[in-house]
């Protein structure tokens, strides 16, 4: 099996606080991998190191065999890593479609063109991406007036504009209604499987995690303490102790849903 992302010995500390300590893992193409853990476990730090926003103190991050440590986010993006943010980051003065068009213009290296109306560029590709995430009907709306769930879907479309090999999603469903959460993750999973994109996401909603992740990694105090299938991780007593609690909550809810 090929490896898409190979992380080895990642270390980061902030003035004495060890945020991430010797984290190693791998992601395969088409695999959906969840990274969970208590607040302050180092999830966001890990994420920000993966896309180049933070430089690790030590360790290597190889994307399809090539080292990406030390590259700025924009270069990591060019290597095929799409990313969504915990708090949505979009261009609020533009329409929904224009948001995607900017990403497409950048992907096709046309951002230094000084002439021509950019609003007409890559229309088909932009519409296709918007259809993919179910936003085609809102294409003309100003991005600034979208509901939060729609912003999350727009972010997904933008993150897919560079035909990524790897998608990093930092709490993709935070702040969304329960129904929207399931829909967004189902959508993401479908796209990932179809296009063979590896997905790494952090999440606090265990419904989302256990429904959609192929495998789950647990981070605690900057160290990976477990990795396995959702079932394995859920029944791991150590993981229950540090993060999940006794798991009754999920089981109860889950049972109810399967009955329905």
């Amino acid at each position: 099996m090929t490896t898409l992302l190979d992380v080895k010995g990642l270390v980061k500390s902030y003035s004495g606080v060890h945020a991430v300590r010797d984290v190693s893992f791998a992601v395969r193409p088409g695999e959906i991998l969840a990274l969970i853990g208590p607040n302050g476990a180092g999830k966001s730090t890990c994420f920000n190191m993966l896309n180049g926003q933070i430089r690790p103190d030590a360790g290597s991050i190889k994307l399809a065999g090539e080292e990406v440590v030390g590259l700025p986010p924009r270069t990591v993006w060019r290597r095929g890593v799409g990313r969504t943010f915990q708090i949505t980051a979009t261009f609020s003065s533009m329409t929904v479609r224009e948001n995607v068009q900017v990403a497409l213009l950048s992907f096709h290296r046309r951002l230094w063109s000084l002439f021509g109306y950019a609003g007409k560029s890559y229309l088909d590709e932009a519409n296709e991406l918007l259809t993919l995430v179910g936003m085609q009907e809102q294409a003309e709306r100003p991005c600034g007036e979208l509901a939060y769930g729609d912003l999350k879907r727009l972010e997904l479309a933008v993150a897919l504009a560079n035909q990524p090999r790897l998608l990093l999603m930092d709490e993709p469903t935070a702040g969304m209604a329960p129904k929207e959460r399931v829909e967004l993750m189902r959508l993401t999973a479908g796209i990932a499987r179809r296009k063979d994109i590896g997905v790494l996401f952090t999440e606090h909603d265990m419904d989302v995690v256990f429904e959609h992740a192929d495998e789950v990694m647990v981070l605690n105090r900057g160290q990976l303490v477990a990795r396995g299938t959702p079932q394995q991780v859920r029944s791991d007593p150590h993981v229950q102790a540090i993060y999940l609690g006794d798991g009754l909550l999920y089981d109860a809810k889950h049972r109810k849903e399967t009955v329905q």
Partner: protein
Amino acid sequence: MELILVQALSGLASAASLFLVASGLSIIFGVTRIVNFAHGAFYMLGAYVAFTLTDRFSGALGFWGGLVAASLIVALLGALMEMVLLRRIYHAPELFQLLATFGVTLMVQDIVVLIWGADDLMGPRAPGFTGAFSLFGRLVPTYDLLLIVLGPAVLGALWLLFHRTRWGVLVRAATQDRDMVACLGVNQKWLFTSVFALGVFLAALGGALQIPRTTVTHYMDLSIIVEVFVVVVIGGLGSVTGAFIAAVLVSELNALGILVLPKISLIAVFLVMAVVLVVRPYGLLGKAERGVRASAGISFRPWKPMSQWERIGAAVLVASAALLPLFAGNYLLSVGSEILVFVLFAASLHFMMTVGGLASFGHAAFFGLGAYGAAFAVKFLGAPMEVALLVGPLFGLIGAVVSGWFCVRLSGVYFAMLTLAFAQIIWSIAFQWVEVTGGDNGILGIWPSAWASSPRGFFWLTLGVSVVGVALLRMLVFSPYGFGLRATRDNTLRSDAIGIDRKSVQWAALLVAGTFAGVAGALFAFLKGSVFPESLAIPISVDGLVMVLLGGIETVSGAVVGAIVYKALAIWLMSQTDLSKLVLGAIIVLLVVAAPKGIVGFIEDWRHRRPPAPNGTGPEAAGKSGTVGIAKMEAAE
């Protein structure tokens, strides 16, 4: 050696007043997030009122009582301004707040002349400190010694105030997170007002303390405000101790710079500021801005290219302007040319500010470089107008390359202040390098070619160049590059995550703006037939800012309308009344309060007025939440 020591003492004495004014500005910014341009005006008022109380009504309060009473009176005026004006605009973009306080500055300038006259005033000496003592055979005024002691004393008093009183703790808390403080049940209104009053008191005291040292003039406000900006930027906005260190540093650089490098003494301070900002972008003791609004240019009605009808309308307007020379007299045509020059200048600044989100306080640098470039081409190369009109923009471009390299490392208020510093450096060179620039006497005899020498011909020339320039800038807005630039303005995090190199894209925006401003400057040189350092000075930069904000920063080409209205109004007022600044300032203040989106933004709002969106989040509500969202996001990252 003795001379250096004496100069150093004199520098320390100057630092006292500078520190008082700067700490006031810093405290106000820390809590209210308003960069108070009117701070220089309060400094000046402090000096004038103190002059009246000590000189005209001497005896009633005594000299020292007069100084304190004057500062208190001015602080009351400041509190009044905060309550009447600033309270209405705390939620406006920070550039509007700056514009409003600038409007107040303009008004105060005329009011001061109205009350105290235009002549410089000599205040009384401080009783008990009238003499001087001898140091190595040189005389040092004893009053200077008093000031040297006073600076650290005020610093200590402020420290006690902020660390040992309940009010001080609240102010420090509000500096960290004013929303949280409001949530804790603190009456924010009065906290803001009292902070503002304290800041103004310090400024006025700084001014009052100057009267035994220097004459009181009605232009001391602009000179101090630039120095104060430099001080708070070097020290770090919001840091009182930083302001003290920077005030000493700047004053010493001024005092000793004259000994070492008399030719470029003015530059030294700004060079130090540029170096500090590059090494420590938030000043010596400043912290990174948290939770700041992303930029002034956030627009929630997406921009669209002109429709067919709008194109026709624009063409008709241009055509009718082109017909103007057929029935307008020479005076009107030269006024028209001047307005057109400023239309192009404002449009270039508008491109930077609204499309790029890069607010510049020093856009005059490129305008003046363009003017001097054209003048050099004529004077030293004997070039004809056609060539000189190309050399000018080239100068603007080169200036933008150099300043942009430094400036794009910063953002927000710090970016704006660094552009101001750069403009002042260029101004100092033009002012002090007499052999080349003619210094204060300028360069004369820059006349257009024969075909454009009549007012009519020159009007057509400026009309053609300005229309093409504005059209090109507008095309750029909608080009792929323009989209990328707007992306960096809207959200740097996202633009970086989709492969956009923010620094290069913004640097390029500066090059574009600098070049077009250079074109405007070159035209201006030929319009006036001469070039003076004034073309590089702060008032030109501020004119540009006012034009852009007047037109509307959320619009694509509002600056065109803003420039026409402002320049026409300014020229007309100048011919009608001696109090043009008072009227202009009042108009600016009224506009900021009544139409914060500018003239064009106001018209667009009126045109787009429509029922709220079905889900109850109209553009207005979405706008607010969008801004907050961005602010929170930047804070989080």
